[in-house]
């Protein structure tokens, strides 16, 4: 890897379960050029300084959502954050907040995977459709309704930005709710009735107190806070209109 003359200190909050009882900070001096991301800094450490450092990464271009971490206490994608923006100060990196640390910068994300599964993140057609019937048709206007929410890359920065999730991990959280909303808005989908009980539930949208930081940190401009809050209105109208339209999911 080409590196320049400049060096930057990267402080990593390390946790090696086989030897540490709690996370400890470790500093590395990393040579860097202005085009190097924090992810590349970590790769330099792993390749040249300390092969025991663990972190997740894949695409290097803000598509895969693997390299989310706290960078100077802010949830960011390491591939999208540049070392030059911190120089000459130390860059502090830590595993994504509000998730258990598996090892170093790797979090345990099982909780989110279960939540993602629970919202049925796929199109549920009204009735089975044979291949011979051809594709589903959708106008650009119909697509525009949900397009923003379909940009979610499951990077979990929004969960690391949500204090309500940190305080109570039963909360379904911003990312899963944005994806739930994405499928509910899709005109090819008829699964809304199956998904709404999750919205209405104790751990559903009303755990959100509109902090709004989830949308601030989202690298794909999904605005999960918007999805959560639109569903608060939906849930409330379902509750109050249940006598008029008794098909609602609020019992």
């Amino acid at each position, binding site marked *: 890897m080409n590196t320049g003359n400049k060096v930057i200190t990267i402080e990593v909050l390390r*946790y090696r*379960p*086989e*030897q540490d009882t*709690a*996370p400890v900070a470790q500093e590395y001096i990393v040579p860097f050029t202005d085009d190097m991301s924090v992810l590349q800094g970590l790769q330099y450490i792993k390749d040249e300084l300390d092969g025991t450092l663990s972190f997740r990464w894949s695409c290097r271009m803000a598509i895969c959502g693997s390299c989310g971490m706290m960078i100077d*206490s*802010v949830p960011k994608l390491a591939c999208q954050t540049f070392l030059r923006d911190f120089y000459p100060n130390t860059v502090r990196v830590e595993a994504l*907040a*509000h998730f*258990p*640390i*598996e090892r170093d910068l790797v979090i*345990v994300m099982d909780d989110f995977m279960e939540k993602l599964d629970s919202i049925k993140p796929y199109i549920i057609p009204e009735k089975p459709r044979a291949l011979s019937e051809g594709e589903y048709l959708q106008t650009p206007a119909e697509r525009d*309704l949900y397009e923003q929410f379909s940009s979610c890359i499951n990077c979990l920065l929004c969960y690391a930005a949500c*204090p309500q999730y*940190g*305080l109570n991990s039963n909360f379904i959280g911003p990312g899963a709710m944005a994806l739930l909303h994405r499928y509910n808005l899709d005109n090819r989908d008829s699964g809304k009735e199956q998904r709404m009980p999750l919205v209405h539930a104790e751990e559903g949208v009303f755990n959100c*107190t*509109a*902090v*709004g*930081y989830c*949308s*601030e940190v989202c690298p794909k401009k999904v*605005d999960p*806070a*918007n999805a959560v*809050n*639109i569903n*608060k*209105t939906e849930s409330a109208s379902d509750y109050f209109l249940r006598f008029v339209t008794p098909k609602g999911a609020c019992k």
Partner: protein
Amino acid sequence: MSARGPARRPFVRSMEGWWRKNPYFIEYMVHEGTALFVAAYALILLISITCLARGEAAWNQWLAVLTNPLCIFVHVLLLVGFLYHTWTWFNIMPRTLPPIIMNGARVTAATITRTGLAAALIASLIIFIIAASLAS
């Protein structure tokens, strides 16, 4: 399981003092805190109405309390809290609304915030003008 213990031992970090760790959370807590200022002013209005209902003597006594410098100072503090609450409330408003489409385009967050602030300003002015005309 190794001799030193299980290989997997996920570490859960404490949430203690979470709101002090990020300027965004501090602002959120101040915003939520200023809701108490709104509640306090509602209480002042409620006391005013109760005094008015109890007759002229009670009302005049209450007016004397309201014109006390300490009470005016409290009102100024409440006003500052109100203004901050209004500003932050309308800033978060675009995140709470479904998309509003006008002339084929989605109304921007900045427009929603500006409209909300303008509505609050106009409503305050109308109330102020009515109050001023009743007082004169």
